[in-house]
């Protein structure tokens, strides 16, 4: 596939993007029935007559999902519809057993919002056209063919556990004027949106598990043109890195097509995460006819002003305001703050401080040991597997002298391995610092006896030689001793 150099694309064309983000809500039950939404269950064990669309079944809306939808809308500065309906989107595709998906059409619950995102110190306002409620579809497994994709498959297998899980689709207006920063703006938007959703506690927002999914619409228009070019829609963009990569790739691919006098086909494209390019999927030359109509089985949703204001009062602090507050409260240096921002650690440090740790201690754990673990596991910091409350508890154990920093790292091992809170890990792994003075004293005497030469040097005043003795004691105690106390004991005994 021909691609044009990114700089050359920018010289000739202006990119236009539209981002559609699907968010699975973290309700315990589905949108219209009581089936569990837990991830990873055996196929077709979280289905019932309603989500399978069996005759005679009737859906009922999950009230918590509507609350979450309204809170998301409010957090994105949207208007909330005072009256709206669900709609049937009709299509023949086996990912929905009903042959339709319950969605919203021209009456979204939230509309006309925005989200400000920052790239390299420059703020871009991304306009949010709408956020609407719908249900997720089932999962298809395509059998036969070389690629596991739908093309060339012999047949397909369907698991409907996911069918009916509450989904919010958030659609931006066309994003123009980002130029060379378009790929970064796309990434920053999805990152900021994810941070907001996490703060609202409405979704797990785990891109790798598909609870947050992004489709990127990209088109190019010649510089100075007033009419948008033909767009492609890239699906399967399942990490922040991919959002940036997919936009950049499509710009370069479309640039090559256009500069050679070709036309961009309006189509769905598939992002190949491993190789970093897109391949054509379904052609959209014939517009789909979904024959939307108001869902007759569900009465309208009419959030009154009192309810909306009640929900508005539950919103967390907006990210920009939080940043201003913590910058003032934490007193970090500019360099420290830049590292914190780069690691995406504002939220977790803020929560760790709220749980009782000092800002410096919270920063130490998150930007040291935990960033390293997150990188090793290839996950975001907030998904590393240790909560801010657990980090605060770990720090309390260190400050209280129960463990030292070295043991703390083993405690982190235990927490990440699912062994419970830090105190539990200390108890079950037997990790606390030995404070039994008798045992320590015996170990110090044994070390002195085993290293008479070193002991003589210390006696002669070479205090730095004591390090070898302290090391021997710490080794004997398997690291579970307070090194400062060991040093005191060594010097005491040799004075």
């Amino acid at each position, binding site marked *: 596939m021909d691609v044009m150099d990114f700089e050359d694309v920018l010289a000739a064309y202006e990119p236009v993007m539209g981002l559609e983000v699907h968010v699975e809500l973290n*309700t*315990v*039950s589905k949108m219209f*029935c*009581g*089936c*569990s939404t837990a991830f990873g269950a*055996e*196929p*077709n*064990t*979280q*289905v*019932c*007559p309603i989500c*399978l669309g069996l005759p005679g079944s009737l859906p*009922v*809306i*999950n*009230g*918590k*999902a*509507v609350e979450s939808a309204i809170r998301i809308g409010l957090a994105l500065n949207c208007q909330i519809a005072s*009256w709206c*309906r669900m709609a049937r989107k*009709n299509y*023949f*595709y*086996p990912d929905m*057993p009903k042959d339709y998906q319950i969605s919203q059409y021209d009456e979204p619950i939230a509309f006309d919002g925005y989200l400000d995102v920052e790239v390299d110190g420059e703020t871009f306002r991304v306009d949010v056209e709408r956020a609407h409620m719908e249900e997720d579809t089932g999962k*298809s*497994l*395509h059998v036969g063919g070389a690629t596991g994709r*739908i*093309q*060339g*498959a*012999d*047949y*397909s*297998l*369907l*698991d*409907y556990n996911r069918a009916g899980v509450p989904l919010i689709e958030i659609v931006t207006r066309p994003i123009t004027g980002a130029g060379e920063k378009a790929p970064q703006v796309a990434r920053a938007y999805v990152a900021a949106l994810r941070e907001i959703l996490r703060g609202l506690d409405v979704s797990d927002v785990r891109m790798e598990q598909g609870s947050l999914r992004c489709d990127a619409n990209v088109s190019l228009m010649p510089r100075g043109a007033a009419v948008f070019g033909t767009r492609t829609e890239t699906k399967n963009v399942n990490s922040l890195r991919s959002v940036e990569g997919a936009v950049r790739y499509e710009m370069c691919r479309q640039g090559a097509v256009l500069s050679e006098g070709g036309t961009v086909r309006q189509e769905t494209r598939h992002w190949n995460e491993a190789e970093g390019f897109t391949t054509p999927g*379904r*052609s959209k030359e014939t517009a789909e*006819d979904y*024959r939307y109509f*108001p869902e*007759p089985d*569900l*009465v*309208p*949703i*009419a*959030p009154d002003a009192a309810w909306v204001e009640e929900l508005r009062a539950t919103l967390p602090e907006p990210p920009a305001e939080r940043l201003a507050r913590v910058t003032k409260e934490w007193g970090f240096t500019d360099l420290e703050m830049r590292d914190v921002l780069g690691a995406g650690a504002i939220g977790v440090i803020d929560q760790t401080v709220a749980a009782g740790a000092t800002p410096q201690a919270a920063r130490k754990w998150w930007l040291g040991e935990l960033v390293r673990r997150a990188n090793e596991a290839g996950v975001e910091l907030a998904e590393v597997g240790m909560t801010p409350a657990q980090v605060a508890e770990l720090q309390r154990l260190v400050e209280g002298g129960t463990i030292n920093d070295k043991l703390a790292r083993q405690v982190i091992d235990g927490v990440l391995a699912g062994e419970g809170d830090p105190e539990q890990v200390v108890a079950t792994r037997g990790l606390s610092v030995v404070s039994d003075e008798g045992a320590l004293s015996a170990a110090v005497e044994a070390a002195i006896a085993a290293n008479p030469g070193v002991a003589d040097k210390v006696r002669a005043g070479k205090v730095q030689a004591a390090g070898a003795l302290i090391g021997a004691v710490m080794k004997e105690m398997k690291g579970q001793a307070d090194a400062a106390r060991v040093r005191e004991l060594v010097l005491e005994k040799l004075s």
Partner: protein
Amino acid sequence: MSSAPLTSADVARLASLARIELTPQELEQFAPQLDVILESVTSVAELAGADVEPTSHALPLTNVFRADEVRPSFTAAQALAGAPAAEDNRFSVPRILDEEA
């Protein structure tokens, strides 16, 4: 009613959307029949004045919600009991797209 009568091309499009195979004779035959039905339904519009909103629901209710609580689901065997074909506890369906799609 004022709109143009249904043509067999309209019926062919509807049939394709509904995945119903019709012969050319059937297309010809159904066009005027469907027209009669449409006209009968449209006559309702003559009764409704400009002040009457289109009705989508017969019940004057809004905000009918359920609590977010898990209720028992089917077992996979129950779910698949009516499936024409199944494999590995999943519904099996014929090829979705042709090779060139």
